[in-house]
């Protein structure tokens, strides 16, 4: 290349011989700073107004926060959430296995179940189970009303609803497992159950856990719907108190704070569960 073609190219800034003598000045970002300050000020104003607003009655909140009836309600909310989650995912896993099986009847049943229970609002479902006595006054000679207490209705209704969503989450997770994994397990002579339990599900867990964590938190708060059938959960206990004392806002705050606390704890738990199922996935070196 001749020197006069080079001359037409705009001169690039030359790199000095001693590049290690230069200091790097990071780009200034005044916009970021302004945005941060504005947001912080707004946040401060909001917190200030909440704390200063006498109507929140934080002293009443403190009084009831650990009262017996609130704690009893909290306990019911916690175990109801746990039971619904466990039963819902057990049934959901079964439904997912049906859906992925080769049997057309099982496939159709699973599909139909998910379609039905995702279509019915959970509130409607609870009310239907609550009034099941109108359809079947007796089951096997026992009065339905005695068989299905409000708590049992809550467990059944919420579980059936949960299972429909869990089935989709588990199915998605199972589909995310490489087909070659199943073939390798088949080639090694592992039984169907062993393949599912030992090879497919543990790997599926990586994509199941994040949405399941979401569902768990959703279920925790979703159980508050059972207050409509007079089940004594966290929200209903708070309501019982404020119906008596008219301290509506502070008692709703008690419930809100508890939901927030439990949700935070669950979030931390999810972090560790995700870490557990991510084992073996960090790449080499």
């Amino acid at each position, binding site marked *: 290349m001749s020197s006069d073609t080079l001359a037409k190219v705009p001169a690039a800034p030359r790199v000095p011989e001693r590049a290690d003598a230069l200091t790097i000045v990071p780009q200034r970002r005044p916009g970021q700073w302004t945005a941060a300050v504005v947001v912080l000020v707004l946040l401060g104003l909001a917190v200030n107004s909440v704390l200063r607003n006498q109507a929140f009655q934080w002293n009443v909140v403190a009084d009831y926060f650990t009262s017996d009836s609130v704690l009893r309600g909290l306990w019911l909310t916690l175990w109801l959430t746990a039971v619904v989650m466990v039963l819902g995912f057990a049934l959901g896993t079964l439904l997912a296995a049906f859906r992925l099986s080769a049997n057309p009847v099982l496939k159709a049943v699973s599909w139909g179940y998910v379609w039905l229970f995702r279509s019915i609002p959970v509130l409607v479902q609870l009310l239907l189970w609550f009034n099941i006595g109108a359809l079947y006054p007796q089951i096997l000679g026992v009065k339905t009303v005695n068989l299905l207490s409000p708590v049992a209705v809550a467990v059944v209704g919420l579980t059936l609803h949960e299972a429909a969503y869990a089935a989709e989450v588990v199915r998605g997770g199972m589909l995310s497992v490489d087909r070659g*994994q199943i*073939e*390798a397990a*088949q*080639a090694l*002579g*592992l039984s169907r159950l062993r393949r599912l339990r030992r090879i497919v599900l543990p*790997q599926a867990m990586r994509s199941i856990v994040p949405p399941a964590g979401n569902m768990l938190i959703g279920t925790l708060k979703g159980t508050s719907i059972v207050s409509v059938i007079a089940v004594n959960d966290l929200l209903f206990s708070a309501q019982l108190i404020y119906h008596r004392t008219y301290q509506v806002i502070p008692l709703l705050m008690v419930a809100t704070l508890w939901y927030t606390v439990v949700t935070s704890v669950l979030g931390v738990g999810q972090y560790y569960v995700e870490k557990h199922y991510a084992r073996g*996935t960090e790449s080499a*070196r």
Partner: protein
Amino acid sequence: MSVMVDIRSVHKSFGSLDVLKGIDLEVRTGEVTVVLGPSGSGKSTLLRTINHLEKVDHGAISVDGALIGYRRSGDKLYELPEREVLKQRTRIGFVFQNFHLFPHLTVLENVIEAPVAALKRPRNEAVDSARRLLERVGLADKADTYPRQLSGGQQQRVAIARALALEPKLLLFDEPTSALDPELVGEVLDVIRDLAGQGTTMIVVTHEIAFAREIADTVVFMADGRIVEQGPPGEVLDAPREDRTRAFLSKVL
């Protein structure tokens, strides 16, 4: 010498695509058969029918005298229940092109999984023999690492150890080095060569012609769902009778 694998007029199609159009092949005990052929000629499908990962449409395969996947009664073949097929598979080791190690299990757990779960071996016995196998493939120090922390060549050697853990009578290799960087091919071929030297009956699908020449007792050339030519490597590789074999070899050599 006795016959380990006996393949008789095997046909297989996927929908309207005929992939195997009548395969006849015998593999004698202790011998190494290398299968060559262009992409899509049906090599993988043939290997997969031998351990019944793929069902045949017609014909029969027996390994060590036992019909694979079926029970014969008169002139009918009755499909075996899965339990029986799984038992047959434990006598046949399969090594995949992409290893298919279980990523959530350590190397050791990968190797003992089948002996413990499928053969009901006591765990400590399985661990002992797994360690011996890992030593044999040169990975004794990797027992407690996860597969993804290993190089491709190391992973494939673990996969071979995992297949050997069932003490199979027959080993099937489907392009065991095709997914590897060139500098890692040698270490895997070394392990296979070692097994061949010890008289393991093997069928190896590969594109490594030099390796085929070295270890094969029989070379089989497949094209378009048929076996075009077979014989000792000196004949098939150095003096092929068929034009298609010659054309293929001139491309890969």
